């Protein structure tokens, strides 16, 4: 499944970049992160919870920076997580692109490619799609809010 | 304090009273087959679609693969083993034999139980009424025509009697 979310943030491109390069900031903007710990320079381990109707999912896995290209204002992250209880998992690739709109205005584009595997994926593609879209929207909103006027 | 994870249920199956201790999670189909030794009822799809697990609860067809055994507490259950009278076979069973209503037999207990419930409620169903009632019971062998015929003939038999 592919998703894309674009938003305008009232902050300079450098500030947005610095904000996103700190995993703590990213995890604070993602609704559902239960824990996130740094394993090494580019890798983090965490637990992510999300509810789909009555079904509670709990993904445990890693998030890794694959590329951080400040010159191009382009970053790539990979995530891989499993829900051991339900038997399923998710593999995702997240790309972030920042475009300068003004000295204090930046456009952030987030592109997500995700594969939901196993039983969790069988449950209902349309539901997963809607959920992921909502999560991405919330992420963009949170980043925007936290950086507003910085 | 009595644990609520198991429960003693009292149910009447094919006219006989039973008292069974079951874990809460026990499905009715498993209770009938394993706790009570009534293996006539089959589990086909486990999601209530195929009808192989059909039993009657208080006279109504249900999917025993979707019912917890505890649901049957205080109820009257009829399985395929309870269709035949004291001696011989019920008209539905005889008719299925006479008119090729089964081949491999997997769907047959469900078919017979469901058909019996139909004729109990509507002794003289039209072909459309038979199809409508039996629609939720799947058969991979016969192509259904012989099943419909068996039920029609059982109805005729009953009305001639």
């Amino acid at each position, binding site marked *: 499944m592919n998703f894309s979310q674009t938003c305008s943030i009232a902050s300079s491109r450098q500030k947005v970049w610095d904000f996103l390069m700190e995993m703590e900031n990213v995890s604070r903007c993602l609704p559902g992160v239960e824990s996130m710990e740094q394993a090494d320079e580019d890798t983090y381990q965490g637990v992510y919870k999300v509810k789909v109707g009555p079904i509670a999912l709990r993904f445990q896995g890693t998030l890794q920076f694959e590329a951080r290209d400040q010159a191009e204002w382009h970053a790539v992250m990979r995530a891989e997580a499993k829900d051991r209880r339900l038997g399923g998992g998710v593999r995702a690739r997240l790309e972030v692109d920042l475009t300068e709109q003004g000295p204090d205005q930046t456009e952030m584009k987030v592109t997500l490619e995700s594969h939901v595997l196993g039983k969790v994926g069988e449950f209902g593609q349309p539901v997963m799609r809607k959920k992921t879209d909502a999560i991405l929207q919330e992420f963009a909103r949170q980043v925007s809010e936290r950086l507003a006027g910085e | 304090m009595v644990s609520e*994870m198991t429960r003693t249920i009292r149910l009447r199956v094919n006219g006989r009273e039973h008292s069974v201790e079951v874990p809460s999670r026990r499905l009715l189909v498993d209770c009938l087959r394993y706790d009570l030794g009534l293996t006539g009822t089959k589990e086909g799809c486990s999601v209530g679609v195929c009808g192989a697990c059909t039993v009657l609860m208080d006279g109504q067809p249900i999917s025993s693969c979707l019912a917890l055994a505890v649901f049957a507490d205080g109820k009257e259950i009829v399985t395929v083993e309870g269709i035949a009278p004291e001696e011989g076979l019920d008209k539905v069973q005889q008719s299925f034999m006479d008119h090729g209503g089964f081949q491999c037999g997997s769907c047959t207990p469900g078919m017979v139980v469901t058909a019996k419930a139909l004729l109990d409620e509507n002794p003289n169903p039209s072909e459309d009424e038979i199809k409508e009632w039996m629609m939720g019971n799947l058969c991979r062998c016969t192509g259904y025509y012989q099943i419909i015929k068996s039920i029609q003939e059982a109805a005729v038999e009953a009305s001639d009697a």
Partner: protein
Amino acid sequence: MHNFEYREPETLEEALLLLGELGEDAKVVAGGTALVIMLNQRLLMPSHLISLRKVENLQAIEASEGDLQLGALATHRAVETSPLVRKHSPVLAETYAQVATLRIRNMATVGGSLAHADPSQDSPVTLMALDARVNLASADGSREVPLDKFFTDYYETVVLPDELITRVLVPPAAPETGSAYVKFLPRSSEDYGTVGVAATVSVEPDSGVCRDCRLVVGGVGSTPMRAREAEDLLKGQRSTPELLQEVGAAARQLTDPVSDVRGSGEYKRAMTGVFVGRAIDQAWQRALV
């Protein structure tokens, strides 16, 4: 299946108390047809099951002050065969009759089905078109929610964790009104439909002109969809094939269907247009009788 404690309260108060005590660890069960599948597949692993099956006064189907009242624990089969329902809202009996199979209808309940909130279900579509309301009880009292405010997302409703559905109330039809529910079922007979449309049309007695109408489409979004903009096109008009096409096209625009095993998004959109036309036509014919 994971084991759990099975509790069988005998009154609503007892059930609500249990719900308050056990919170998120407990799941409520009525007919069990949706829940048991999820338990079997270990998608849900509650520590407790609160059964409503023995709670008094939840099963009745009765009339009160003109409203049809369906108890939360009334089975689909009971609604389908009830002489009262057939008289008060025949389209409702017709709708419940089309759900799944006889076996499922003998177990699945009015309330359980609404709580499950699968957007492909039949009954919410018709109930919404009939302006039905849901009564929700909690330890603090009760409230009524109209069906068109009840569903929020796939498998999600406004029911709070400490609330239980007790009954569904269906108001009487306005005079000179016809209703229809049309289910497009291209796959096997026990399945959910690809799209389902409920329509009610009220006419001026002499001219047959549409005075008022309701149009609801199921299976084309994350909740059943009330097609208000399409409804507006009918008011004050006479029934013509062109009008039916126009309304179908308007309804299509409002849908947001996702591609799945029952059809591509495009196909569902196209079928919305077709079946909206058919449902309105049928409802209109019934109004004119």
